[in-house]
């Protein structure tokens, strides 16, 4: 039998993953949208 993973470990891993996803979306996603905005409209502003 494989070693059971403790619920605490699973919770910690889930929280880390959620935080990581949030940070990735916030940094990469927002930066890329900002880039599009600046490239497309910055000259017109």
């Amino acid at each position, binding site marked *: *039998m*494989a070693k059971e993973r403790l619920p605490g470990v699973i919770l910690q*891993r889930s929280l*880390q*993953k959620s*935080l*990581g*996803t*949030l*940070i*990735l*979306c*916030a*940094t*990469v*996603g927002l*930066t*890329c*949208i*900002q*880039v*599009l905005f*600046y*490239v*497309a409209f910055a*000259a017109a502003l």
Partner: protein
Amino acid sequence: MSAIVPEPSLIGHLRQYWLRLPVVGPLLLLVLPIPLIPSIFIALARGNFVNFLTALTAWLLLLGAAWCVRRGLVHEAQLQRLGWSRSAPLPWKTLGAVAAGLATGLCSVFIIGQSVPASIAVGLTTLAGVVLNYRPDRLFLRARAGPLVSRNREVADALEEARRKIDSIDSARAQIRNSELQRRIHRIIGQAMDILATIADDPVTLGRARRFLKVYLDGTQRVIEGYARIHRDQRTGQLEDNFRNVLVTIEDTFGEQQRTLRRKDALDLDVQIEVLAKQLENEGVL
């Protein structure tokens, strides 16, 4: 025979399937940079070279990050499931995180116009996000991976024997100076490793895959090693065509083998092996 690795959950299955796909990588790192694609063309159309170059570099860096992270995930999955992996044990996920951080940092400085410290902060935050999302590299897995498959001696021996054959095929592949043939053999090796992973996950399939491990893999090894040996001395178009045909057949049949093993359906398996063995004989490579 009892299973040595617990049955993966639905998400585990999906993750394994996702990692087996040849092209796609971590989804977020492929989807989030999509706005950069129109940015590249808009910058080009407006003649803004700095914006164009920065957006293009950032997009390529993010694609590179996705490739590195995917490689790290595949490497770990193979180590966990098979006890060995063909990828070099490099910190792939960390490399991917650095590439992603560099991409956002560059965009912040050169396009958005933020200060250098602020851009460094954005880059470091991205790096942390990638590491948190995809977990840090676990290079120590290599040392720990062995016992996972060795609990079942029969399976471990069969997998080890198959591993040696695949290693030989890989060495022979490196001697063939033809990128198209190399790619085909690379795909065949990937398929063979998938089949081994299926056996490691579900040892019951070993009985059904035994002829594959003995006849198929042996035949493939002999064909590829034989071609690599002849290829060194001479190059004939006819032989290359025959070899290509055999590789196509091996690729098709390996794929079918894997599907059959997954379906837990032994029907036709032996027939396919017979057909391949016959074809290898007819092509004069066995």
